[in-house]
């Protein structure tokens, strides 16, 4: 098994999931790269995190009512699922269709939205947009329940075009109004009661309730509309059909995929003004979009097997989002075998780093890439990964230390020790400067097997958690 193959597999696993351990990587390399891509994309998780387990230890996780338990139960799945790809897909869509607790005051509908992403997120884009337009959390979030025949609320119509499909510059203000008209009547059952509960942030008298889509024919504006040059008595599905046919939609969604899975693109508001990093890749993905009938799974299969994805040029060219950083770190440390209270508080670290799951700063979601980094979030990020890796009581860290000790003899060089640890952590690639810094630390403290004690290993691992390379994926 060549080192190159392991490195490539490590790259794939950082992108389809949250990184893999040395053992896992070796197993996957044996499957062959393309096979492994198919396995990841096609297989259903054979062990779904048991709801009973979550209910047993943390009842609020299982039927998420409040603001934080929702993110905590999702994080638990990211850490323990044997198919983290599913969670990664939901995270991808959550970033684009970002919907927030602040306005809903109801965790159940947000939880249901994430479930919807994992169910429809690898299907075709048309179905996903229809599900999204019927999603109760989205209907409240962008006020479609307040849009009526004769009193149109443009919020959903606008964001559907601007943020969820085509991007600015590809439609007119008139198209927004017409699209909004077509979605009148798309609301939730018992709307007045549900929205009043949200506004009052009330749990009385029945707790936070699940919500359901309802189509109200009598509140739907059935008159003729002209949308993107087409004329007809359009309803919401027709609008989505027209949207999905657009080249702009293919490019928009391809660029999102490229940014999330290949390398960071600038944030969406800059797209009309800046060329993609790799325009050819966007073209290729757009072709797959049309050739496969808007099929997301096939676009991703193509992406992961493509040369532009496998190229070393894009390895580590993403800044981990806070959720990726926290989930990836906790997959290494394996400290939360049960969904307990501490795990819930670990979840809140993602918000300290600027990403509170299911509570985005605005309908635009989060700006990614280097925009995750400022002198404040760098402090949070470095402190989290360095503290977690440095805790030798965590079973994952314990095992790494034991493996390293059994691989190393007194004759081995400092380089060999560093390589060994980085392999254990999932084949992390580091710069010469970082390597020299680690070497200086090791040479000053560790000169024999005996000095590979917990105290020194903890400090070394804290330094590794603090490396700039640990912040990248």
């Amino acid at each position, binding site marked *: 098994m060549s080192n190159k193959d392991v490195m490539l597999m490590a790259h794939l696993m950082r992108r389809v999931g949250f990184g893999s351990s040395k053992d896992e990587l070796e197993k996957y390399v044996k499957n062959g790269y393309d096979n492994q891509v198919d396995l990841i994309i096609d297989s259903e998780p054979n062990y779904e995190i048991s709801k009973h387990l979550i209910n047993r230890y943390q009842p609020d996780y299982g039927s998420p009512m409040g603001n934080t338990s929702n993110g905590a139960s999702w994080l638990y799945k990211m850490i323990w699922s044997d198919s983290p790809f599913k969670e990664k897909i939901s995270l991808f869509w959550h970033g684009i269709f970002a919907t927030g607790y602040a306005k809903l005051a109801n965790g159940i509908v947000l939880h249901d939205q994430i479930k919807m992403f994992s169910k429809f997120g690898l299907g075709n884009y048309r179905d996903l947009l229809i599900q999204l337009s019927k999603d109760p959390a989205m209907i409240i979030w962008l006020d479609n329940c307040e849009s009526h025949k004769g009193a149109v609320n443009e919020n959903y119509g606008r964001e559907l075009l601007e943020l969820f499909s085509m991007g600015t510059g590809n439609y007119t203000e008139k198209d927004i109004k017409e699209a909004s008209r077509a979605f009148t009547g798309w609301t939730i059952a018992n709307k007045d009661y549900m929205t009043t509960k949200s506004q009052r942030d009330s749990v009385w008298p029945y707790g936070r309730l699940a919500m359901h889509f309802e189509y109200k024919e009598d509140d739907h504006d059935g008159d003729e509309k002209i949308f993107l040059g087409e004329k007809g008595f359009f309803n919401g599905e027709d609008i989505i059909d027209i949207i999905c046919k657009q080249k702009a939609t293919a490019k928009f969604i391809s660029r999102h995929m490229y940014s999330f899975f290949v390398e960071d693109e600038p944030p969406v508001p800059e797209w009309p003004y800046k060329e993609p990093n790799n325009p050819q890749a966007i073209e290729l993905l757009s072709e797959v979009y049309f050739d496969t009938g808007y099929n997301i799974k096939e676009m991703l299969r193509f992406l992961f097997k493509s040369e532009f994805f496998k190229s070393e040029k894009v390895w580590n060219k993403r800044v981990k989002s806070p959720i990726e950083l926290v989930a990836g770190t906790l997959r290494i440390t394996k400290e939360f075998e049960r969904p307990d209270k501490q795990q819930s508080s670990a979840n809140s670290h993602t918000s300290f780093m600027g990403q509170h799951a299911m509570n985005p*700063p605005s309908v635009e979601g989060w*700006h990614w890439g*280097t925009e995750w980094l400022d*002198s*404040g979030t760098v402090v949070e990020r470095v402190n989290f990964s360095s503290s977690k890796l440095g805790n030798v009581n965590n079973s994952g860290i314990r095992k790494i230390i034991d493996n390293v000790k059994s691989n190393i003899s007194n004759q081995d060089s400092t380089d060999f020790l560093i390589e060994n640890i980085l392999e254990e952590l999932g084949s992390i690639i580091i710069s010469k400067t970082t390597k020299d810094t680690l070497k200086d630390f090791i040479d000053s403290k560790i000169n024999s097997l005996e000095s590979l004690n917990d105290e020194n290993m903890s400090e070394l691992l804290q330094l590794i958690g603090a490396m700039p390379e640990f912040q990248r994926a």
Partner: protein
Amino acid sequence: MKDKKDKSLVVIQLSGGNDAMNTIVPYNNGIYHDSRSAIHLTEKEILDIDGSLGFHPEMGAIKNLWDQNKVAVINGIGYPVPNRSHFRSMDIWHTAESESIAPDGWLGRTIREIDPSHNNVVTAVNFGRGLPRALVCKDVPVASVGDLETYGLMPDIKGKSQRHDALSYFSRMYGPNQGRDAILEALGENGVSAMNGADILSGANSKYSSSIEYADNPISNNLKDIAKVIFADVGTKIYYAQHGSFDTHAGELFNHAKLWKDLSDALGDFYEDLKEHDKEDDVTVLLFSEFGRRIEDNGSGTDHGSGGVAFVLGGSVNGGFYGEQPSLELSEQIEGDMKYNNDFRSTYATLLDNWMGIDSVPILGKNYEKFNFIKKGT
């Protein structure tokens, strides 16, 4: 007169588009009541200013400062060709560039003017998560603080000499070296300024003492932290915080009231705190939002609009109305919105030239007409 170097600017962003019409309320205008059948405020509720306009009922603490002539209300603020997308409009306010996409923010450029060789990493301090674009400028470090009390790097490494070593390894890994790509560039810059900023700011927290009890909500906590840094005299010139969301498409009466109550009370406490520390004339506060909202309500809230309202508060402010209250007559509306009558960059220019003592032209790209809401001789 105090030395210019003591002066600072606090910018509070009202995210989501504050509804200007329910903030400074034209409460006896018939068109207001007609267009706001669902969410109007009545004469009985509002805090009257001049018999035609009144503050939102929850803005008591701001009204109190207004009565002391310390609040400038800038009505009809905006920019040509309104954009009703949150992101784009916020971007325009942040970059002070309404036609093209600018690479940096107006405050970032200001910091570069104040401290071109960036000797002080806390020239600007952002409170909250994520650096707003207004503060972004290449090579300009800004400290970004969630909570002043817990600010610092690798706190698990204890022991003075171990910490010293760890931080020196850290600075080597993040310091300038060969072959950096954009990501490492960003990590490096932010890592190093984080390290330096942490040192300075942890001091500010431990020195603070005050008799003012702030409420426990995010904007109050931010203003309290800002006060701590002001009193520590570490050379900070610009403070930034955000409050929201003002995106009141629905349930506006309820949500808008809570937002203004929290903010107004926090500003009242903040001003008292400044007074207690003899700093009330050294600090000027700007409140802005990316746009106002539609004149007509949608049955439970208001949709994105254009012309809005901004506030400048402080001991060195000439209180009063600036700009004009836009007419609500149909013929004077712009696509159903209040029409802007003064460019937000006039307010920026006034703050830069007359308050900060910094030439606004290179920062804003041209000369904007200025208001006189800053007292002469301050």
